[in-house]
């Protein structure tokens, strides 16, 4: 880990002046640039509309055009928080933390076993897990509803956490195993020569050396849990266990067209935690978003 990241830091610390023609630099790509600019408008306008309108008073929203300068009416945010969004945000934090905890606790030893175990059972179970990558969560909502009601978990945060973690698990294990395979065999050997058992090897060697992978799957899991909609939708109905995503829909249903600025303030509010994460850990966040697909 430390050995590998060291050279990169060195390069960054000492920028060597280069002759201008040494590095290959393509000419500016004008048509692609124009295309990108168009896409920038297509993405940017709705986002501008979102933030600008969330800062208007109700009257200003109706009078001013949708693209006029943003208002300064922060009262919408207070209104949203007063409408139960504090509860929803707390629920989201619990769901996200619970899901991440389950996934990390299950995936780390499983990844270790898949990489190091000689058992055929482990290899078979890994293939089964990989098949799980292809199962769309939407297609299992009816049996999950049956399962969760039979377990007497309907209308609880655990009802959301349990299936969310299950559907993230295959990807988490896939990402972890590809990271754990990079740990040199000599390190395992020297630890076992010292008499360390599998538990100690996992704790002292595998976990510290797979930290980047653990961060990636943690973020991937957190994003899925934070933005999950389908499981809260079919497995809860009590406002006390409502999550933010469901709260947004419900809020639009009750406020509808009468108070669009407040609805949009709620959307902005739901996005804020991730935006903060994005600003402070862009690389980690983008890595977590694409997880195993980016390889």
């Amino acid at each position, binding site marked *: 880990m430390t050995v590998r990241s060291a050279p990169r830091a060195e390069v960054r610390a000492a920028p060597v002046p280069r002759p201008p023609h040494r590095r290959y630099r393509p000419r500016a790509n004008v048509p*692609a640039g124009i*295309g990108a600019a168009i896409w920038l408008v297509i993405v940017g306008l709705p986002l501008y509309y979102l933030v600008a309108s969330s800062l208007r008073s109700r009257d200003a929203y109706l009078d001013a055009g949708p693209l006029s300068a943003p208002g300064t009416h922060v009262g919408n945010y207070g209104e949203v928080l007063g409408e139960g969004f504090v509860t929803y945000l707390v629920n989201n934090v619990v769901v996200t933390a619970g899901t991440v905890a389950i996934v990390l606790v299950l995936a780390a030893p499983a990844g270790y076993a898949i990489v190091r175990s000689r058992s055929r059972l482990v290899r078979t179970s890994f293939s089964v897990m990989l098949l799980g990558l292809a199962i769309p969560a939407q297609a299992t909502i*009816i*049996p999950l509803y049956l399962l969760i009601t039979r377990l007497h978990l309907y209308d609880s945060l655990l009802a959301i956490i*349990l299936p969310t973690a299950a559907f993230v698990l295959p990807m988490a294990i896939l990402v972890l195993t590809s990271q754990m395979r990079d740990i040199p065999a000599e390190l395992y*050997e020297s630890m076992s020569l010292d008499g360390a058992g*599998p538990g100690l090897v996992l704790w002292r060697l595998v976990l510290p050396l797979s930290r980047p992978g653990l961060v990636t799957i943690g973020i991937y899991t957190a994003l899925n849990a934070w933005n999950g909609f389908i499981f809260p939708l079919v497995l809860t109905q009590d406002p006390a266990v409502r999550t933010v995503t469901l709260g947004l829909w419900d809020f*639009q249903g009750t406020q509808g067209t009468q108070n669009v600025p407040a609805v949009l303030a709620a959307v902005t509010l739901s996005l804020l935690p991730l935006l903060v994460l994005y600003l402070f850990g862009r690389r980690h966040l983008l890595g977590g*978003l694409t997880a195993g*697909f980016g390889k």
Partner: protein
Amino acid sequence: MAAVADRSARPGAIWAAPALVYFAVFALLPMALVVYLSFTRWNGLGSPHWTGLANWSYLLRDPQVIQSLKLSGILTAVTWAFQTAVSLPLGVWAAGPQRGRAVLSAVFFTPLLISSSGIAVLWKALLDPNFGLATIFGPWVGVDDGNFIGRPSLALWTIMAVISWQFIPFHTLLYQSATRQIPSVLYEAATVDGAGRFQQFRAITLPQLRHTIITSSVLMIVGSLTYFEVVLIITGGGPGAATRILPLDMYLTGFSAFQMGYASVLSVLLLAVGTALSLLIVRVTGYRRMTSQREGL
């Protein structure tokens, strides 16, 4: 001696067991249960009643399912073509050395951070024909009154646009990171040989991105076959049944009409079509052969 020490440190199957058991209970068991439920009648309360093939024979007579399959087919094909046509060049471009790229990416990738329901709620407000952004861009695209979701003929296209808006950033990100991994030596050599930009794109970039094109396509196709959150919130399947795609039909049949048995038939159908399509893509494109050549993953 070394062999003994080595064996002592090898983890047994027990280390993978918790994850496997957990996955079996909450993902594999539901898969089996959905097949069982498709042979029952169940309204969500009480216990399912075995009815044999009744649901399955209704599938053949159900006029809605044909319509829903057709809508899902159109949605899948169009969003796949459109998203690929936009995200591939955009990703390749974004991998380049433009100035101000950090600012651009911040805008490009922000939709990735918004939840499906957030995006749907935003677009529903935005598409409001009286006060939304639709009043401005409607006339640009020939919809003068800005009423995009009120007309059956337009609603599906609008949904497809919103779904593309939501997922193009993700696929752009995939293409961007894959393009960055193409060795620049290839381009340098091609430049020396006098190949133009388009030739380079066709002869180097596209073949090098083959793997990513397949991954991205499978994700898009299976995704749009099963995804319905945005449709549920923006149109609820309407007007009429103009946007009642198959997964939404399944959800509404199950959780709105409480015909859980027949909805399970639709779930099995979704699972079967999704799996078959991804297997087909993998077969036709030789994806498996490619992955087996790569080490690591």
